[in-house]
């Protein structure tokens, strides 16, 4: 057992209101620069929808993630020799047109236009070329367009639905959508790291944050296509790749990452998970059906004395173990089994988990009355407007058992709390629902509390990062006296 600690995340989709505050917080801190304007390390997608970049989930095109070939784990993009052979032109690389061309407006025209009978307008100009452009796409161009034939209908996840289900999904009275905020998953088996020819991308041993060494990146672009979530971006100005860094400078000073901190719906949770690094390959090789269970099984119980001993011997600080014991992520993922990894069939073993969203129930006609009631306590799960197969494709590698379990629990708790606060549900029915959902009243209260009444400190249990023990602290600061400073000596300027 090789115990390592990982900063992991849970996004509670049932709470997401799609306000994009997270995206803006991130943009303002990290990507408001030339070359990075088009990047959204955090973005919020409307599902069903094509996403950002367009159809990123379609790995037949982008060839991201891993596949199992002859019992071995292989990058879907290519083997090593092939990567080096295709280094001059990467056939699976998305171009900026798959994202969008960033633009601004010529606002000065509003002030400088000569007097006339028409209103002056500010024309859009490209932030790359400075020339006028016709805007064709933006980062959330399909925002809220749940039933759109251009966007929603081209969602790659809809492939799992039957023709009839697809048609139903787009019937006007059944239109549905939910929000899907995304950042880098800081995976345990990251394909961007494995694909980087320069070895510039690495996972930090202490906290599992995946970073790109900017001075070692040579712009070979293999990571961009290899990441199945398309969360590595190519900076067209510096000629280097960039990605979400989980705001590590904030984490190291005990602050939540910007997107977490600013989340209006309070849907985000952050905490430490202890996992067994020796099992990464074995878990990633599991069959689609067993992937989620295997992934969960490599997450270790931070209260188990043996795990604690192993963690200590592996250099995990006591304070980090303590924070793993209080981790809300551990509760959601391992104890309550409500949070699921996105597209685990890409086999990168993401460390960001989603609580699947509830959706409105389909109405049905009974005589002259539109009603939503039917028999069975959990009928809503199968009558929800978002088809189960669709959610299973997103969060269950195509298998619905785990998704169903998570939804059932949410519904049971909802009924249970309704029985408590409103009282129009018989307590014995609520209890029966809890039992059927594999939940106890105590657990239901705990989930309810962490979902609805959670404080800032309960949502973000940030471990001390112990940078005071980092190697650079051993260096004599006087070594650098009269030098330019501790940071990057040359500005990160594009080479010639």
């Amino acid at each position, binding site marked *: 057992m090789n115990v390592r600690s990982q900063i992991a995340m849970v996004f509670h989709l049932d709470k997401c209101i799609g306000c994009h505050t997270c995206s803006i917080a991130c943009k303002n801190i990290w990507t408001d620069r030339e070359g990075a304007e088009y990047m959204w390390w955090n973005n919020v997608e409307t599902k069903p929808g094509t996403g950002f970049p367009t159809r990123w989930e379609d790995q037949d095109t982008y060839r991201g993630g891993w596949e199992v070939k002859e019992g071995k784990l292989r*990058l879907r993009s290519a083997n*090593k*020799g092939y990567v*080096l052979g295709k*280094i*001059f*032109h*990467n*056939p699976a*690389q998305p*171009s*900026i*047109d798959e994202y969008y*061309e960033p633009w601004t407006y010529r606002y000065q025209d509003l002030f400088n236009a000569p007097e006339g009978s028409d209103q002056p307008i500010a024309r859009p100009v*490209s932030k*790359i*070329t400075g*020339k006028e452009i016709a805007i064709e796409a933006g980062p959330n161009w399909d925002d809220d367009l749940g039933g759109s034939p251009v966007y929603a209908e081209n969602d790659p996840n809809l492939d799992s639905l039957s023709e009839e289900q697809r048609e139903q999904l787009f019937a006007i009275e059944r239109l549905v959508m939910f929000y899907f905020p995304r950042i880098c998953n800081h995976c345990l*088996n*990251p394909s961007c*790291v*494995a694909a*980087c020819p*320069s*070895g510039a*991308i*690495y*996972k*930090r*041993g202490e906290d599992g944050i995946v970073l790109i060494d900017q*001075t*070692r*990146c*040579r*712009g*070979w*672009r293999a990571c*961009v296509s290899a990441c199945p979530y398309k969360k590595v971006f*190519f900076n*067209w*100005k*510096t*000629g*280097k790749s960039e990605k979400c860094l989980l705001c590590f400078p904030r984490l190291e000073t005990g602050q939540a990452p910007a997107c977490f901190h600013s989340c209006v719906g309070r849907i985000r949770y952050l905490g430490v998970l202890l996992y067994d690094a020796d099992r*990464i390959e074995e878990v990633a090789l599991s069959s689609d059906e067993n992937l989620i269970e295997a992934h969960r099984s490599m997450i270790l119980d931070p209260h188990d004395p043996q795990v604690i001993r192993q963690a200590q011997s592996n*250099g995990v600080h006591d304070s980090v173990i303590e924070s793993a014991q209080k981790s809300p992520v551990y509760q959601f993922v391992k104890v309550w089994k409500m949070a699921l990894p996105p597209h685990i069939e890409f086999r990168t073993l993401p460390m960001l988990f989603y609580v699947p969203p509830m959706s409105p129930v389909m109405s049905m006609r009974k005589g002259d009355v539109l009603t939503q009631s039917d028999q069975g306590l959990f009928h809503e799960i199968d009558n929800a407007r978002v088809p189960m197969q669709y959610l299973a494709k997103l969060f269950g590698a195509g298998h619905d058992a785990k998704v169903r379990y998570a939804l059932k629990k949410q519904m049971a708790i909802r009924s249970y709390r309704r029985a408590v606060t409103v009282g129009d549900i018989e307590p014995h029915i609520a209890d029966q629902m809890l039992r059927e959902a594999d939940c106890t009243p105590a657990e239901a209260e705990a989930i309810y509390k962490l979902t609805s009444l959670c404080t800032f400190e309960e949502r973000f249990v940030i471990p001390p990062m*112990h*940078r005071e*023990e*980092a*190697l*650079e602290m051993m260096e004599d600061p006087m070594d650098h006296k009269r030098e330019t400073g501790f940071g*990057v*000596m*040359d500005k*990160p*300027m*594009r*080479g*010639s």
Partner: protein
Amino acid sequence: MSGSILDIFLFVVLPYAATAIFFIGTIRRYRTQPFSYSSLSSQFLENKKHFWGLVPFHYGLIVILTGHLIGFLIPRTVLWWNRVPARLYILEISALIFGLLTLIGLIQIIYRRFSSQRVLVVTSVMDWVLYVLLLIQIVLGLYTAVAYPWGSTWFAALAAPYLWSLCKFSPDVSFVAPLPWMFKAHIVGAYALIAIFPFTRLVHLLVYPLPYVWRKPQVVRWYSRPEGIR
């Protein structure tokens, strides 16, 4: 050592100067501006013409440069190979094909730089200098190949001993002094490219990621452990 002042300047002083600039320039740049070592790919900004330029150019150039290197390293073997006319023709024709590929690729690359506004934005002055030099160099090379046939033979017989004399620090320009000026220009062009190498995007050639072939797939760095990269 014999030859005119000009010959000595072009074929003795220039190569040593260019090589010195090459080493000092690239090492200095790597140490002081590691960030600037990048392929500076523009595929992200333009994805279609990119293929038709970059692929023929790179593969053409790799084969041609390897050919030059072989002629330099094992000239006797090349001469032995060329003794049979059929083998000579095969060698010359394939070299010409790859030379043409390189030229076509470069023309496409230059055309792409002009025709795509986005790519034009990320094109530096040194890029243009490089393209002009490369274009001249490739055209001169192709012209030499066509106008003075069986270059593979006389490269091995004349250029190789000249280059070896440079390597042994006893330069002998008598091998190249009597050669046609178009070919002399090709040699000078090569030195010019070596000299500007550290100041252009060509440095990406030095960081071709060969270690990727044998490194482990996952890279983990510890900021608190002496072994660092593991």
